[in-house]
C-alpha cells in the first residue's frame, strides 16, 4: 500500500503559494473541501485563480476567500447567491470566466484523463464560443475547449483510506471525482478516514492513484443553502 495519509490540513497544503491555480470540488455548498478552504484563509494565500462550479455564499465556502480578496480569477458556471462576488466582479477587482457546467466538468476530466482538449456542442453560437476553434462533425457544430491546468485540486469525500481511495455520498459527489488527478497535486479531505482494507474495492468511486494527499477534516459544518421540506401527512 502506498501511503497518501498526511497528519493534518497544514501538511496537506504544503507547497501552496500565491498566484497558483486551484480546483475546488462542490456544487453550491454541498461537497466543498471546507477544511482546505479554511486553511487557505488562515494562510492568506493571494492572487489565486480558482476553478469551481460556484463561488460559495458571502460567509461560507469560497466566499471566505473572496472576502479576504485572495482570489484574482474565478472560472465557474454559476455564481449567484454571493453579493461580495458580484461587487468584486462589477468593480473589475475579480476576473470571471463563466463556462457551461458540462464543459467545466469535462475540462477537469480531460486533465485527469490525459486529453489536451475536447469538442463540445455546448455554447456553440453564443458568446462563450467567441474566438474559439469550432468544427463540424456529422452536420453539427462543436467548440474546442482545453483541459484545465491547475497546481492543486482540493476535493472532499465522505470516506477514504490511507491508500487515497475515496467514497462519496449523495450529490456531494458532483465535481469532486472529476478533479481528482486533474491537477499537479490532489488533496482529498474526508469526513472519515477508515483503516486500509475496510473499504470494499468494488465500491470505491475514486482509486487512490488519483490522490496525492489525504486527511480527515477536523470538523464539517455542511451548511444547507436552501432548506426545503414538506409537512408530514397525518
Amino acid at each position: 500500500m502506498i501511503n497518501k495519509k498526511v497528519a493534518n490540513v497544514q501538511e496537506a497544503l504544503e507547497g501552496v503559494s500565491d498566484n497558483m491555480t486551484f480546483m475546488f470540488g462542490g456544487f453550491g455548498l454541498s461537497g466543498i473541501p471546507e477544511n482546505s478552504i479554511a486553511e487557505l484563509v488562515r494562510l492568506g494565500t493571494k492572487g489565486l485563480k480558482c476553478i469551481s462550479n460556484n463561488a460559495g455564499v458571502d460567509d461560507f465556502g469560497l466566499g471566505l476567500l473572496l472576502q479576504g480578496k485572495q482570489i484574482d480569477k474565478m472560472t465557474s458556471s454559476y455564481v449567484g447567491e454571493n453579493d461580495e462576488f458580484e461587487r468584486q466582479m462589477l468593480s473589475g477587482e475579480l476576473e470571471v470566466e463563466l463556462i457551461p457546467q458540462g464543459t467545466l466538468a469535462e475540462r477537469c476530466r480531460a486533465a485527469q484523463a490525459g486529453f489536451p482538449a475536447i469538442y463540445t456542442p455546448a455554447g456553440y453560437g453564443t458568446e462563450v464560443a467567441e474566438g474559439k476553434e469550432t468544427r463540424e462533425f456529422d452536420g453539427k457544430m462543436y467548440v474546442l475547449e482545453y483541459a484545465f491546468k491547475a497546481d492543486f485540486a482540493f476535493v472532499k469525500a465522505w470516506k477514504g483510506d490511507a491508500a487515497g481511495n475515496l467514497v462519496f455520498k449523495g450529490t456531494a459527489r458532483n465535481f469532486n471525482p472529476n478533479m481528482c488527478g486533474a491537477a499537479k497535486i490532489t488533496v482529498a479531505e474526508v469526513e472519515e478516514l477508515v483503516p486500509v482494507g475496510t473499504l470494499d474495492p468494488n465500491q470505491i468511486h475514486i482509486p487512490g492513484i488519483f490522490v496525492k494527499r489525504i486527511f480527515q477534516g477536523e470538523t464539517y459544518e455542511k451548511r444547507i443553502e436552501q432548506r426545503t421540506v414538506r409537512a408530514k401527512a397525518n
Partner: protein
Amino acid sequence: MLDKNGIAKRIAKEVQDGYYVNLGIGIPTLVANYVRDDIEVEFQSENGVLGMGPFPFEGEEDADIINAGKQTITTLPGASFFDSATSFSMIRGQHVDLTILGAMEVSEDGDIANWKIPGKMVKGMGGAMDLVASAENIIVAMMHTNRAGASKLLKHCSLPLTGVACVKKVVTNLAVMQVTPNGFKLLERAPGVSVEEIQNATEGHLIIDGDIPEMDL
C-alpha cells in the same frame, strides 16, 4: 390566463411514460407536482442524481442530497448518484428525453436567452448551455411577457444567447406554441385568453391556422 402552477400543469401533459426528464429552476420544478401517477418517469438533476423524489420531511433534510437549485430533496427507489461529468454525459449524450427550462427570451427561430442581462444580472449559465445544445426535446416554460409588459417571444433575442435554434415548444401563461421553420405556431390558448390577446403579446411571427382550441387541463 394561467399562473405558474397552471403552466407547470400544462407542461406535465407532455411528460410520457418511460421518460427521463431534466427540470430547470423556477416554473419547471413545479412540473414534477403534476405528472400523472400511472406513468413511470425519472427526474434527473444536473448536480448528480437520477430518480429525484419530493422534498424531505422536516428534520430529515440532508446537506449531501440536494437538487440543482441547491434545495434539499429525497430520492426514490431505483435512484442513483453520479459525478458531474457523468451527469452531463447523460445530457449531451441525449440520454435525457425531455428538458424543461425557463427563459428570458425565445426567438421565432428557436433561439433561447436565459443566462445574462449585460450590466445587470450575471449569474451564469449553469448547465443550461449543455442542455439546450444537445436535447432533442426542449420545452420552455415562461410568462409570455416580462414585468414591463414586453413580449418575451421575439423575432430575434436581444440578450446574449444560451443556445441556437433549439427550442421545440413554448408554454406560457397565455398559450402553447410549437417552434417551426416559419415561426411560432399557435397550438392552444390558455383558458379565457383570446387569439388576439396572444397575438398582441407576441412580437415574433405567430402562425394562426384555423380554430385554436383552449387548453385541456
